[in-house]
């Protein structure tokens, strides 16, 4: 196989689908830039959280009071594995000619992501039962906004996955569908990185400090 130049960071389709590979260049580049804008959003949410996590407690619950570390750890494992499964899906997209492997790995990713969201909703529910609602203090407002923004992004990714599964069925493995899957992959991995930061700077730091 002729070696194609890498046109953009990440998965390149040059060796298996030259046409899509060329089409991908501006599309994937643009999406990376969009992700950068999204990351700035999260960076600001982190900065806000940092400024409010201690001084914004207003005598209410502190991180140690409300954070469920084991649950957060399981969520981390779920999301990390979902990134691995999506990586497998991307490889299937690139190297397999059929849809079966791709769909299998996507569905598995979906289940892991849905599990993450389910556990997070449960965590929030328990917190509200304890009175740790966002209306209680600035710290909690910042916490819920940061983590829920991430959760909403993940949920949007899950919806996107459903749409892609439908499109694979209806449209097949066309160039447009491949490019959308490549963008969804980048989106998903970025969210995983953001979660690692949340687990570290919010949960672990919150309990340790």
């Amino acid at each position: 196989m002729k070696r194609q130049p890498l046109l953009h960071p990440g998965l390149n389709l040059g060796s298996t689908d030259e046409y899509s590979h060329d089409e991908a260049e501006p599309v994937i580049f643009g999406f990376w830039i969009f992700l950068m804008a999204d990351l700035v959003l999260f960076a600001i949410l982190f900065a806000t959280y940092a400024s409010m996590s201690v001084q914004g407690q207003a005598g209410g619950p502190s991180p140690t009071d409300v954070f469920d570390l084991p649950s957060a750890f399981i969520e981390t494992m779920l999301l990390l594995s979902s990134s691995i499964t999506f990586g497998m899906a991307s490889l299937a997209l690139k190297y397999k000619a059929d849809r079966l492997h791709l769909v299998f790995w996507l569905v598995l990713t979906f289940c892991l992501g849905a599990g993450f969201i389910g556990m997070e909703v449960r965590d929030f529910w328990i917190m509200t039962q304890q009175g740790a609602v966002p209306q209680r203090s600035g710290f909690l407002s910042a916490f819920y906004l940061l983590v829920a923004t991430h959760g909403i992004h993940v949920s949007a990714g899950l919806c996107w996955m459903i749409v892609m599964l439908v499109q694979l069925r209806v449209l097949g493995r066309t160039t447009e569908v491949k490019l959308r899957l490549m963008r969804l992959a980048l989106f998903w991995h970025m969210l995983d990185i953001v979660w690692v930061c949340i687990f570290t700077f919010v949960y672990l730091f919150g309990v340790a400090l």
Partner: protein
Amino acid sequence: MFSVATTASNGFINPAGPIAEALRDHLIFIVMVMAVVIVPLFIALPWTLWRYRLRTKSGSYQPNWEFSWPLEILIWGLPAVIVVVLGWNLWHQSYELDPYKPLAAAEAPLEIQAIALDWKWVFIYPDQNVASVNEVMIVAGRPVRFRLTSGTVMQSFMIPRLGGQIYTMAGMETQMNLLASEPGQFRGLNTQYNGMGFANQKFITHAVSQADFDAWATKMSDSKPPLNQAAWALLAKPSVLAAPQSFGSVAEGLFTWVIAGFTGGHPHMKADGTDL
């Protein structure tokens, strides 16, 4: 109407104290330094427009001339030098004229606690245990230290002829150190928009002698009603007062109580990041 710009106006260009005077002088200095880069433009531009106009007979036409090292060095270098000069000054002036910096004087500063409300200013004199609303008494020639907070939204305290301004915020304390050189009357105001009565939120500063100030404080103690919870509740209602008010005694710890009302008594920082 136009001629009273400097002599009768209320701005810092008509200073009544050393801080406002310093601010005015710094402004003039900046203008003069910047003139070095700006005035050449005012001269060179009309000259260029004339010499290189379409039907000119004198200017040469070099459509591809686009670079000159000496000019580049001048264009980048001169502003850089100006920035260094102005920056050096800026650094020192920021420390010297920090509102939190106590003013050098033989005597201790007059302490006043100011609470910004809608749409009025409450001034508490903790050492004299009196209070005045929409007017403040200070001693001419003696530094004053204001400790400020807000009972409502973000506001900004300023007596333009004496110095600059500082924001007042609920649950937080800010400080302003001022000095009036001579006795007089100066207008103060809130500069940060806070609603329908914003334009009316002005107060008068009376700078008097120490003797007059003491006499005033005694007179207030003897004759004026107390600033208790009931009186405070009335003041806290959004309203514009027709005339200044005075109080002969102040509920203990009113200023800290106002701040604590927002922090719930929990530690909350001052605006400069240190704890209250």
